[in-house]
């Protein structure tokens, strides 16, 4: 029975797991390319921070909050014209990356901002008193000192993005979410859906364990 199941669905499940991993990996990567600078910028322009600027800080906060308040599945639909403009199509895993990145970046930015805020302000003063420029304070103090926290944040972001990829399946993004919806919801083949759930659980566990190992390895401040 098991053999029969895998003969029927094995290849498809394998392929779609690959699609989910592809979307998660690149969604996270580009989410950070966009979200990391955004988070740093937001942190730096805050009152009493490195380069306080009330209006810039407010505008950044607005952009982040507005993007974050749109449920991802609706954001995806709303972005279809934009996605078509960028990738030339609105269907498939590559096309799904556009809304994934735009949905993930503000989330990442908030995580980065909150990690950076963990640093005591007197450490920033201390670096300043040694003649460090703002750029050096970010690159040599804030980022290295908060690296374990940033990596921990990245594990949360990655797992959230896995959730997003499942939703991307609902509008033709492919991946495990697509499989679960097609077989489970549309055809009533619940066994396939349960297997996809199982695969997702294993993925999340493995990702979390990998991140935990990395954090344990790099964190030198274990008190």
């Amino acid at each position: 029975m098991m053999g029969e199941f895998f003969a029927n669905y094995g290849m498809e499940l394998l392929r779609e797991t690959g699609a989910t991993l592809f979307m998660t990996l690149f969604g996270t990567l580009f989410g950070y390319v966009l979200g990391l600078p955004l988070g740093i910028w937001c942190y730096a322009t805050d009152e009493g921070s490195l380069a306080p600027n009330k209006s810039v800080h407010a505008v950044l906060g607005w952009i982040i909050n507005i993007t974050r308040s749109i449920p991802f599945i609706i954001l995806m639909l709303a972005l279809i014209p934009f996605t078509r403009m960028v990738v030339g199509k609105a269907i498939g895993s590559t096309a799904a990356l556009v809304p994934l990145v735009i949905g993930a970046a503000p989330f990442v930015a908030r995580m980065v901002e909150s990690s950076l805020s963990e640093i005591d302000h007197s450490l920033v003063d201390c670096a300043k008193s040694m003649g460090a420029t703002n750029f050096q304070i970010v690159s040599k103090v804030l980022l290295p000192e908060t690296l374990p926290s940033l990596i921990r944040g990245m594990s949360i972001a990655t797992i959230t993005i896995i959730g997003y990829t499942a939703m991307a399946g609902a509008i033709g993004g492919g991946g495990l979410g697509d499989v679960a919806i097609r077989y489970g919801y549309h055809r009533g083949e619940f066994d396939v859906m349960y297997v996809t759930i199982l695969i997702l659980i294993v993925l999340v566990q493995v990702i979390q364990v990998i991140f935990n190992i990395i954090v344990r390895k790099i964190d030198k401040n274990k008190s």
Partner: protein
Amino acid sequence: MIEIKSLSKQFMNHEDHQLEVLKDISLTVEDGDIYGIIGMSGAGKSTMLRLIGLLDSPTSGEILVDGKNINELTGKDKISYYKSIGTVFQGYNLLMQKTVFDNVMFPLTLSKYDKAEAQAKVNKLLELVGLADKANAYPCTLSGGQRQRVAIARALANDPELLLCDEPTSALDSLTTRSILELLQQINRTMGVTIIIITHEIGVVKTICNKVAVLDQGVLVDNGPVQEVKNHREHEITRELFGGNE
């Protein structure tokens, strides 16, 4: 020489009330002094150190270091002023993800540097503060006293002429305090570094300072050589700090 002239600092608090933290302070720190600034909490000591360290600017008055008004410094001059002073904080402010060695090296990496020269210097400084064997340790494995020694070594990395110490021993036990104070004194004597030390403990002043300024609610109430201030005790706070008749 540091000349502080009619220095005042006001803050706006949350209800938009003006808070006068420092009122018309004037004093002179000579080269080679170990100048204690003592007062109760809220007396304005830390603000004063922040102003001298150029981490904040005064509302009025000026601070002249070797004749130059530090608040008029810009660009490169400002950076080189920062590099001519070292600061030691109560909370050590070490980089917890970096080794002891890299912490002391840190100020040197902020401008162009020769690697071999810098490493030799860090080793010398670690020797000076007695932590040569801890070069590769991480700060979280060190005691409070050891952490403060690392911070002192780091503050000396740029060969400062002036060392600012903000309650450097307040988080330490009395035995460790004594050894840190001895270290500061040694630095003052052998390297000729002028030291300004903020404290609320009269013991610190008595142990290493040659001059003392007593602050009370932002006002400089007594000021001068420690022995003189101790003998005259003009102000109530001074009497309280120095204790009864000895």
